[in-house]
């Protein structure tokens, strides 16, 4: 039972990295991104090739070294950031809204085609195998103890990421990002560069998704392109919507709810093969996800924990009152806007 709970939580914590990444791109910057999972896949791949060592023929993959896990995670984040930068520079200059979503899906499918076709680089559908458990050699724990260790390790990194994102949210950059999302024309008039701000947010989101991918491969131990389909993105989408788009706490809660809902949805269905002699549990899970998305958008589009509103009623300008220094900074901003010298 403990083992079940730990492995469940491990996956849950890893998914929180993905949803935080999606939330920065979608909730804060305002562009629905359907390509998050390709950044996860790339992050996982880079981590795998940096820790799994040289490929044994006939398998082949690039790099193939046995570097420490943390270094590999760093490399994954860098590659994720570079990839986000490249796609963001192409797409974010002109595309917004639905057009951007279609473009990002396009990008995902191109990445998927490249991964599955370019043999020397990705070893096609064999994937990378034999990724060692991170820190295993140094710790010498039992399997159960190791699972708990890895869970604590992931939560520690998640905590750092959470503090980091909350810091961005409250920073002037975060504020201008939300201003751009709510009214790009007004933000431009106040001297904000829409393209650069959106690009920054896109890169940060990609970095976090890749970091999560690296942690995920630490659990899975193998990397295979089949496991990273674009439909997983809909899970993340659902989690962000349920929790409360643009609110990081809500997004964490939403991820947890979706994880529980998915496992519970298929628990009470007998594990008998369906009418077509196959395992239908995944299809049922996705049906549940689709219905959840519709229900949330119908009855509570702002999510369980909606984004805070400030006194002026603008979503996202909410700043915790118990932080005086932040409040002061906020007041200065307001003063300069509201109390300009009157004629």
């Amino acid at each position, binding site marked *: 039972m403990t083992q079940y709970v730990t492995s469940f939580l491990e996956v849950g914590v890893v998914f929180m990295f993905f949803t935080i990444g999606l939330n920065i791109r979608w909730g804060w910057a305002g562009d629905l991104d359907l390509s998050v999972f390709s950044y996860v896949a790339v992050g996982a791949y880079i981590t795998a090739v940096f820790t799994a060592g040289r490929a044994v023929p006939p398998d082949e993959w690039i790099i193939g070294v046995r570097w420490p896990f943390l270094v590999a995670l760093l490399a994954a984040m860098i590659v994720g950031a570079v990839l986000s930068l490249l796609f963001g520079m192409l797409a974010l200059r002109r595309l917004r809204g639905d057009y951007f979503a279609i473009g990002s899906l396009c990008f995902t499918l*191109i990445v998927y085609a490249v991964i599955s076709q370019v043999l020397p680089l990705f070893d096609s559908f064999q994937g990378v195998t034999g990724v060692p458990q991170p820190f295993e050699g140094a710790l010498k724990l039992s399997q159960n103890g190791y699972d708990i260790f890895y869970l604590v390790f992931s939560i520690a990194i998640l905590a750092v990421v959470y503090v980091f994102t909350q810091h961005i949210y409250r920073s002037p950059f975060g504020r201008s990002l939300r201003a751009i999302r709510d009214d790009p024309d007004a933000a431009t008039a106040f001297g904000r560069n829409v393209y650069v701000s959106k690009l920054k947010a896109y890169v940060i989101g990609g970095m976090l998704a890749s970091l999560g991918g690296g942690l995920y491969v630490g659990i899975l131990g193998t990397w295979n392109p089949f496991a990273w389909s674009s439909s997983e993105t809909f899970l993340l989408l659902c989690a962000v919507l349920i929790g409360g788009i643009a609110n990081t706490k809500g997004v964490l809660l939403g991820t947890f709810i979706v994880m529980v809902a998915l496992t519970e949805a298929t628990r009470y269905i007998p594990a008998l093969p369906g009418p077509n002699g196959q395992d239908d549990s995944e299809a049922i899970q996705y049906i549940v996800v689709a*219905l959840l998305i519709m229900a949330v*958008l119908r009855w509570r589009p702002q999510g369980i924990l909606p984004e805070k509103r400030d006194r002026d009623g603008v979503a996202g300008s909410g700043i915790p009152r118990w932080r005086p220094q932040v409040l002061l900074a906020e007041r200065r901003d307001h003063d300069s806007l509201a109390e300009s010298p009157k004629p």
Partner: protein
Amino acid sequence: MDTFFLGVGFGLVTASVLAISAVALTLQFSVTDVPNFSHGELMTIGAYTALEVQSFTSNLLVGALLAAASGSALALILNLLLRRFIRAGAKRFVLFVITIAYGLLLQNVYQLVWGVDTRAYKLPLSEVHHIGPMILTGRQLAIIAIAVLAMLAVHVMLRYTKFGKAQRAVADNKELARVTGISVGRVVTITWLITGAMAGLAGFILGMTVGAITPTLGFNFLLTVFAAVIIGGLGKPYGAMAGALIIGLVTEVSALYIDPDYTSVLAFGILLLALAFRPQGLVATFREVQA
């Protein structure tokens, strides 16, 4: 050179399927203002319906009609669903996410009903015709003819019928259309009906040309449809016809020279570039040129 024209022949067939589907998508978008991400699933239902029809009649015409009807039915359900959200004041991105969820729902329901295994139609052998340098089977010629007829029908509807005029009015400006006495709700519903039927028909033809029907048949084809639509300019039916021709020919002809696995990458690459540099489409309308 012979292989080149062989590719052109296949390209025309692919372009025919694409044209029906793309014109449906773009017409529906221009009138209803909803970017429909579940369009692929409307195609898939057509393919599966025709497959089921085959178990009691081998008449392909009946299959085609019922495929179109099933596409219509699902499109109407989506319209009812979306209407509740529109009444509640949902933004366009919410409607877009709703169509994503609807597509996800349908795709997995198909998987529950028909399974993940590849299915195919039982088709009689079709004789080969030489037309100029191209070699096409009778069935492929029929597919091209159906597409040409469908395009003509859309053209006649948009240009010469009162309903087509109303459609163009609604696409142009909903408020003004309402003021002039057009029942916008009815125009939107009938547009969903027509475009759903076209999608279902396209799905049936797609299942015939691909020869492998799976729950993700339409979804896998969706981005190619979007490529044709966006090259022609979202919301412009005549642009979509041109876009379908371009994408169909490019993917099939290039398949002769590069690894066939990369042809979809080529289509998506064209789409990405079109999105990045000319999202209004290759052919600008008169109004856009003036602006």
